[in-house]
């Protein structure tokens, strides 16, 4: 290699490094992680490579605007966010887009109170940190840490305390709070709550005018530097549940806010026409606004509010299906009953929604005939406390549903909705994770392409589907395939023109029947795993729409060399992949199949090494591989100051049945005695020319030579040379590798299996003589 070339290469690398600055930016956390609505907040964004040309923040929910974003250093950026005064308090998902990529999703938390920061030392009950009643404190609970804050409240005033800890999504942090009076008596305490899961809240009336100390700690005095919290302390209303917990799209519902110490309050809310993924209502009154909202359901069924007493089959609250029967298990041991008419053969989905609207009720749902005979019952469903019954009506008549608490508990906030609706034709769409527990970021390089896998599971219907992204940034197009009726996964290829602007776009993935014969309910949401427990149990996740970004071009592209011959079942093939490396880039490019069709396995560890432009990916199939034409894609990853990804264009891989079948005889021979091993051949797919046949799996000491067959062969015969020390025994795994050549490409079959028995020769007959052992070995 000439010196000149080497210098050029080195320069090229430098150039490449500056042109493609930093791929795969990460957003680890935000500092602070929230702000008061109606204010502008400067937030430090912290994460690998995030400071390298940050350009945009994608906000998943309305109400926050990016005023400015600038680099602090490579791994930090400063963003100025303007939070609208009417911004919905609570969790807001965000992603940051840099010139080269899109970060993972993190949450920003909008509060309603002025913000403050804890200042240590505040761990002594006797010397707490003083704050005004009406503050959101940003703090951290390190190991064995306890933080105390003191407020002043007047008798009769509402003191509400809510902590966001686990919900900040940073670490498995389980906060506990308490409101204590000056004598250290507990006025209220909370560890976990149905509304907030591991987070906690208290809302009480101050029993007397004076000082109150708020204790903030980890439940079992554990914690670490990532155990940050936002502690909202104020007079705001903090109800536990909104009753009836939902309504129809576009409907204005009157909500009873349950669990407020000042008594039940009413509030009206207009439900959106198009339900968002997570619709919440944040309580607000003259004393303030709650820091987070209460979840509401939006479904197309009329609310039927329970009329007590409804404990008996006869006095059950009546309604007409479809309906959302809404009630409260008001006291321990309470039972609510609902009655409705249904016709034979009808199918109804009965969803008992309680914990989903964060009610403490852990319901048991039972369906019975009006005569009292029980037909079905459900306690928990799909690992969650809410109940579900798919009810097929056995005969025309009246039916009754019972609702009780699992532990026979009850209380004023034990609200629920029994939603009985017709099953809907629906598709559950998932953007598959590239690696487990990592939500896939979709980043398309300018003038390049990327590919993702989508799973679409059909509920209540079958048929071919068109699946694709609903919205894409300008200059980005998608290519995909029709999703066959018998399959649920498909690749989507996204391409950006070289001129496409660097941009980010929120989007969803939709599916419809190819014949558009029936409308389908599309259920798409992308899960961001924020906190996992032991064994990777999901503890806290955020669900949101998808996002697609256009990023700077990559210094390489790849393509599949279109195979000219099929891959047969129980066969193997080498898929050639070619890279186009731009000048200055010669890193390793890892290549692998975007997905393996059923029955196919591909090698995952192949790379186009430095100095190379080509690689082959070995593919193998099992006998059950689905024989059809598959649209395949190869994806490529390389380290260009961070991981970048691209994909090939579609290629077609035909998986076909084997061309020949073989019938193996079971044969025996002796050590040292050769034989001809003849295998019957039946042709199923004619081929031209001669195919090479190798017999594999022979035991040590047995050799043969490859043979050939043509389309007319009915037998292939292998002369076996059996050595005198060939291994004795049954050798059951003989098989043939048949290589047919089609369009100049090998079509490799593996066809088995045969059995060869090798015996030791019988000993020569002996006559025992005196003094000489009968084995004859003594001489």
């Amino acid at each position, binding site marked *: 290699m000439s010196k000149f070339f080497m210098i050029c290469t080195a320069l090229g690398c430098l150039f490449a490094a500056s042109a493609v600055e930093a791929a795969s930016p990460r957003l680890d956390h935000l500092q602070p992680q929230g702000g008061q609505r109606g204010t502008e907040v400067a937030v430090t964004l912290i994460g690998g490579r995030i400071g390298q040309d940050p350009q945009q923040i994608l906000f998943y929910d309305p109400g926050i605007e990016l005023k400015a974003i600038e680099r602090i250093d490579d791994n930090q950026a400063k963003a100025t966010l303007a939070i609208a005064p009417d911004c919905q308090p609570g969790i807001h998902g965000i992603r940051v887009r840099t010139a080269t990529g899109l970060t993972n999703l993190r949450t920003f938390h909008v509060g309603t109170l002025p913000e403050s920061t804890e200042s240590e030392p505040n761990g002594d009950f006797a010397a707490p940190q003083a704050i005004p009643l009406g503050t959101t404190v940003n703090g951290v609970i390190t190991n*064995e840490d306890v933080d105390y804050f003191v407020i002043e409240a007047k008798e009769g005033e509402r003191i509400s305390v809510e902590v966001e800890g686990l919900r900040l999504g940073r670490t498995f942090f*389980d906060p506990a709070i308490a409101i204590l009076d000056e004598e250290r008596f507990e006025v209220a305490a909370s*560890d*976990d709550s*149905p509304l907030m*899961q*591991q987070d906690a809240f208290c809302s009480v009336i101050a029993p007397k005018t004076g000082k109150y100390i708020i204790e903030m700690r980890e*439940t*079992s*005095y*554990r914690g670490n530097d990532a155990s940050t919290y936002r502690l909202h302390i104020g007079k705001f209303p903090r109800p536990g549940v909104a009753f009836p917990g939902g309504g129809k799209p576009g409907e204005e519902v009157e909500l009873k806010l349950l669990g407020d110490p000042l008594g039940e309050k009413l509030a009206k809310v207009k439900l959106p026409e198009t339900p968002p993924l997570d619709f919440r209502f944040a309580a607000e009154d003259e004393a303030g606004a709650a820091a987070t909202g209460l979840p509401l359901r939006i479904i197309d069924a009329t609310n039927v509010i329970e009329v007590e007493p409804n404990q008996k089959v006869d006095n059950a609250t009546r309604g007409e299906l479809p309906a959302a029967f809404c009630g409260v298990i008001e006291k321990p041991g309470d039972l609510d009953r609902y009655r409705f008419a249904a016709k034979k053969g009808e199918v109804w989905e009965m969803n008992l929604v309680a*914990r989903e609207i964060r009610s403490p009720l*852990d319901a048991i749902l039972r369906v019975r005939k009006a005569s009292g005979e029980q037909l079905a019952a459900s*306690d*928990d469903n799909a*690992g*969650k*406390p809410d109940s579900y019954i798919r009810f097929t009506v056995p005969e025309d008549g009246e039916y009754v549903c019972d609702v009780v608490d*699992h*532990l026979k508990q009850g209380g004023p906030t034990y609200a629920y909705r029994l939603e009985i609706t017709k099953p809907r034709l629906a598709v559950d769409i998932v953007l598959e994770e590239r690696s487990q527990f990592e939500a896939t970021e979709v980043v398309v390089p300018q003038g390049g392409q990327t590919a993702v896998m989508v799973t679409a599971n059909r509920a209540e219907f079958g048929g071919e589907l068109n699946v694709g992204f609903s919205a894409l940034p300008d200059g980005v197009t998608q290519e995909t395939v029709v999703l066959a009726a018998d399959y649920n996964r498909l690749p989507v290829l996204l391409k950006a023109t070289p001129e496409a602007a660097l941009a980010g776009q929120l989007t969803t993935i939709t599916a419809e029947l190819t014949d558009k014969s029936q409308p389908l309910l599309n259920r798409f949401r992308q899960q961001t795993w924020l906190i996992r*427990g*032991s*064994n990777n*149990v999901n*503890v806290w996740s955020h669900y949101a729409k998808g996002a697609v970004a256009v990023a700077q071009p990559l210094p390489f592209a790849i393509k599949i060399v279109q195979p000219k011959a099929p891959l047969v079942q129980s066969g193997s093939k080498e898929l050639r992949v070619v890279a186009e490396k731009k000048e200055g880039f010669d890193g390793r490019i890892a290549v692998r199949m975007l997905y393996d069709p059923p029955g196919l396995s591909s090698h995952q560890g192949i790379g186009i090494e430095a100095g190379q432009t080509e690689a082959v990916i070995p593919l193998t199939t099992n006998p059950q591989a689905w024989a059809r034409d598959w649209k395949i894609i190869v994806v490529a990853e390389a380290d260009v100051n961070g991981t970048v990804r691209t994909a090939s264009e579609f290629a077609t891989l035909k998986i076909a049945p084997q061309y020949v079948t073989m019938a193996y005889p079971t044969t025996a021979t002796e050590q040292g005695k050769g034989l001809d091993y003849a295998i019957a051949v039946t042709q199923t797919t004619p081929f031209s020319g001669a195919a090479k046949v190798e017999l594999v799996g022979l035991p040590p000491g047995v050799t043969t030579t490859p043979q050939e067959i043509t389309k007319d062969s009915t037998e292939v015969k292998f002369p076996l040379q059996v050595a005198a020390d060939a291994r004795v025994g049954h050798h059951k795994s003989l098989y043939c590798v048949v290589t047919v050549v089609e369009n100049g490409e090998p079509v490799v079959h593996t066809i088995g299996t045969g059995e060869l028995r090798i015996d030791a020769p019988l000993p020569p007959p002996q006559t025992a003589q005196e003094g000489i052992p009968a084995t004859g070995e003594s001489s």
Partner: protein
Amino acid sequence: MKIFRFVLSFGLLICANHFALAKTSSAPGETPAGKPEVVADVASLAVYPSEIVLEDGDDYQGVIAVATRANGVTLDVSDQVEWVVEGSARLEGNRLLPVADGATVLRASYGTHQAEAPVKVVGVTNHPAVSFRHDVMPIFLRGGCNAGGCHGSSRGKDGFRLSLFGFDPAGDYFRLTREQAVRRVNLSIPEESLLFTKVTGKVPHTGGKTFEPDSVHAKTLRDWVAAGAQSDVATAPTVTKVELFPPRVVMEGEGAKQRFIAVAHYSDGRTRDVGDLALFMSNNESSAAIDADGLATAGARGEAFVMARFDTHTVGSQTLVLPAGVEFKPTGEAPANYIDELVGAKLRTMRINPSGICTDEEFLRRVSVDVVGRLPTRDEYDVFMNDSNPQKRAQKVDELLERKEFAEIWALKWSELLMVKSVPNRIEYKPMFLYSQWITRQIASGVPLDEMVRNLLGASGGSFSSPAVNFYQIEETTQKTAENVAQVFLGTRLQCAQCHNHPFDRWTMDDYYSFTAFFSQIGRKTAEDYRETIIFDQRSGEATHLVDGRAMKPKFLGDAEPDVSKRDRRAVLADWITAPENPYFAVNVANRVWAHFMGVGVIEPVDDVRVSNPASNPDLHAKLGAKLIEYKYDLRQLVRDICNSHAYQRSSEPNETNSTDTRNFARAQVRRIPAEVLLDCLCAVTGAPEKYPGLPMGARAVQIVDGGLSTYFLTTFGRAPRTTVCACEPKTEPTLSQALHLLNGSAVHDKINEGKLVETMLDAGKNPIEVVEEIYLRCLGRKPTEMESQRIAELYGTAEKPVAELQDVFWAVLNSREFLFNK
């Protein structure tokens, strides 16, 4: 041959019935001429059984007469008394036989003393057939045939299996009569049955000859086969009770003898002399050995519990053996409370005198370590020693009981019993933390123990929101849960009865599975937080019997079958356990408390209550339980009684009479301080606190929540691993590694250096003498003796600040037994 037979039958007669020949032999207390010599100081005479019923023509009843002397010693005078019986019954030897239907009285006279027993005779014309259930089965137990080493082994022996200790009569009948046709039982030629030929040694038998061919047992077996080898398993009345007479024996002098008789009571109201069939045992062979026929012989001074086992019942009699001719003068000490009265009464019977009362210094250190797990501070020492109030000990007890550390000590004890411990991938730390807090809160706030147990056993809900349910989270299997409940709250070990009837207790497999039925309906499900489990009553699920798969109805141990149709079975059980009438709970809890303070329980081990492990002082045992009930299960009040008793406050120095006694509380037991408390004491005296995971600096070892967390020190010194509910888990036995750790390890040396106590005191102007005194007071709760001071002074000579020397003194004191033990 004839002679041989004669000798043989003679021998057998001796074996089978001593009474027949007793009059011709030379029994103690009898002159060679045969005339009974009446012992002068006899105070009373008794005849056993006190009521006799003979119910068929073959029935009989052995009788004994027992005289009690003024000093409490009992004498077996069966052969010395003059027996008189007329009419319906007659006496053959000491065996009463029926003559005719009717009633009469058996009279015994001994000197001026008389005793009698009414006798009723019915059905003399009846001669019942041999019963498989009541005649044949007991022979297997008596002969050892169904013992674990023989045919009772789960795989049988030499191809033949019997149920262990006869837990499965139906199965035994099947195997005898059906498993191998005609071989084991030959109806045509009964003598050819293997059952007969094997036990009599006619054919080779690994177990040898078990009975002579003409023995009563061999005859029973043959008669049963001859009568058609019928089974009466399903119809036979059950044994409801077995009595052993005499109920209490005090033997004086080695070689003294006492005959015992066993009487079985059946569910049909009949009684029967089962002296031939019962298995006699003694729990202390060296004091009172008992032979196969119930004749006990006194050995060394001590106490034994002589037992008879018949069917599933084991009953026993307390047997004291006193040395003959010892002069005993009881000390005239006034009892402090009921404890001393009962302890004293027992000691007087044993002719033991208690040690004296310990010094104030000893008391202060002892009571501080026992009640609050801490050594007295210098201030506490000074205040107590300078207090001249005669009530100061009682006041000190009251003061200590109010301290938080008292609750922590008992929370630790309960946490050990309840196995509070996180287990990777099964039990998370948080529920254990909450559980531990719950336990501490219960004790700190004085929740009565019965209420705490009801809250625990009847708990439903989430393991976070209702931490008591963790009891069912830690142990998930139904059977182990039942076993744990029996062991922790009733002090009874049921484990054996899972697979066979308990060999040394009354519990049968029926009892076991009926008891587990209380826990067969526990439902569990994971809450929203995967770390939390919800325990609930799922109102379905039964306990099935291992042998025949029967669904067993819940039944209290040794008590009734309650109505559980409308309630959580566990709550029903909790009510029974904590009811004042319950014979196990209060006494067991009280005994555990007693054992904590006295080093040994009245029943020991405290969680192995069984017929064959009786209380060393039954009256005291009962009284402690009764007092706990009277105090409404207030732990503190019982502790107050114990700590204020002389029994607790005795010196550990033995005297002549009590040097060998360890079970009667005649002196204080020297006890190794438990691991957690010892480490806390070490930290406190050196001023060098430990850091435990999950607890702030300075937190004490007794506060560690999680049994899974330990330190080298705690493990070495026997911290309970909390893997079982056994009270034996915390170990206080000394080991070599403990000694090495203290001598060479980091614990003592580093702590002395870290705490810098010697330097601090010297810098504060204390002279070496004062420093030594301070070290002694902190560690041992006393001042150095003259000699100790003198010897130590030689070490540092005239140096003003002999830091190294004084550290050595400190090290030596911490390594002394006096520091490690509570004496």
